[in-house]
């Protein structure tokens, strides 16, 4: 099967006061059509930079990005981005925050209202269209972030630890909702996390990154869907992968 989104020989280096810092070098990543792929690794290993490099938000020193088999400029494919923090405009209402992204995506004005309504409804925030972000809870703000990313109707959803700052109950609810939305929309998701249980619950496949920014292992997650966060079988898979993962990381 041809990968939908592919990064080949990706190399990112930043200039720092102490000289050049290599985040990763010669990295390959492929997201298959309809796949939920997770990049898992310890904090600071460069997981987020993988997303940002594909999205064209950080410059590549070397490497090729392909979409549907064709070489493209990084970021020149249809994606929606859900960040670790919601990154909302505090001075705009929830609906206006979505409109901001829709305008960027070139969605005609006449279509924006119905899209905003649809996606706020899908994430359970239909009544909050006129609220300001500061009036919402952390979980609700993150839902706005998810709605904003989906409202632009992207082919690929890039998600950077979107539930890591939420409490356990809110995080579980949002993960369940995300899986439902993914099932309904069939979009490819490239997800980043440092939480193995989250990776196992959500993903089709997990790529493991070490502290030097190299993929050292990958695992298919064979469990049927829908998945239950508390399913003991998932717990067993998590335990098995943790042994592999942490043995490698030392």
């Amino acid at each position: 099967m041809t990968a939908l989104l592919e990064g080949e020989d990706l190399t990112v280096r930043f200039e720092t006061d102490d000289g050049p810092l290599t985040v990763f070098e010669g990295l390959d990543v492929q997201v298959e059509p309809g796949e939920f792929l997770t990049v898992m690794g310890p904090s600071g290993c460069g997981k987020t930079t993988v997303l940002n490099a594909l999205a064209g938000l950080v410059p590549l020193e070397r490497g090729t990005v392909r979409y549907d088999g064709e070489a493209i400029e990084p970021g020149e494919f249809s994606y929606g981005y859900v960040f670790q923090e919601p990154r909302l405009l505090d001075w705009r209402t929830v609906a206006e925050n979505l409109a901001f992204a829709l305008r960027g995506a070139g969605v005609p004005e006449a279509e924006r209202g119905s899209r905003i309504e649809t996606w706020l409804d899908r994430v359970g925030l239909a009544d909050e269209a006129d609220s300001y972000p500061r009036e919402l809870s952390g979980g609700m703000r993150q839902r706005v972030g998810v709605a904003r990313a989906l409202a632009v109707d992207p082919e690929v959803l890039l998600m950077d630890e979107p539930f890591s700052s939420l409490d356990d109950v809110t995080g579980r609810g949002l993960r369940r909702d995300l899986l439902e939305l993914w099932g309904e929309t069939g979009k490819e998701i490239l997800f980043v996390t440092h939480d193995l249980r989250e990776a196992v619950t959500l993903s089709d496949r997990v790529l493991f990154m070490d502290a030097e920014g190299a993929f050292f292992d990958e695992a298919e997650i064979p469990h049927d869907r829908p998945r239950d966060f508390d399913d003991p079988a998932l717990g067993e898979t998590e335990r098995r992968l943790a042994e592999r993962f942490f043995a490698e990381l030392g």
Partner: protein
Amino acid sequence: MRRWLRVLVTLLAFLLAWQAGALVLGPELLPSPARVAARLAEVLAGTGPRDRGALYHLGRSFARVAVVTVLGLALSTALGLAMGVDDRAERVVAVWLPLWMTVPTLVVVLVSMVLLDFSEWAVVAGVTFVATPFATANVWEGARAVDPALLEMARAFDVGRWDVLREVYLPATLPQVLGSVRYLLGMVWKVVVLAETFGLDEGLGAMFRFWFNQGDVTAILAYLSLFVVVMVALQYGFGAVSDRLLAWQG
């Protein structure tokens, strides 16, 4: 204590102190509030020098203040934002800003009056020159503090430069812009009156000079009361507008 009650108590305390001062110093040096109020009613109702009433002179000063405030605000917002957005603009203007801020107000007003032949434009140019750098520095600080995470979000959603300026930079720096307006309103009034005192025949400053030359302290204080009432009303009115515009801060 309620706000209006606080204002009333402050006003009463001020009038009492004034009355006490008038009793100690005598009416020649410090006329009582009642005498000044009676004189104020006279200058408001009747005509003063050059067959013009106090309201005419107030109007002249007010027009100058309005023009300079709008000009100063436009210039400082444009310069401050440009410095926040563009490194080159920042490098060029930042070099001049300290110099621009340290030129004494009095010198600028005098030089402007001489260069522009004591015309209307001499006041406008001189006061704008004096007021703009402080407001620029203020807006620049605000633009520098714009959250880079929001700018990255805007890039991820492919939002255009103009929309980023309008939807991110301007609202994010609105507290600083409004602070600049408050500052400009206060500063511009004072410097306009100063400039009028030096070299113009119309406006509140010209009236201060005229009545000073006549040795009429009561008339000076009557005009001064008018000036202060307008200043305070403007500041209060602006405060209400400002609170409304920043309602999203909660």
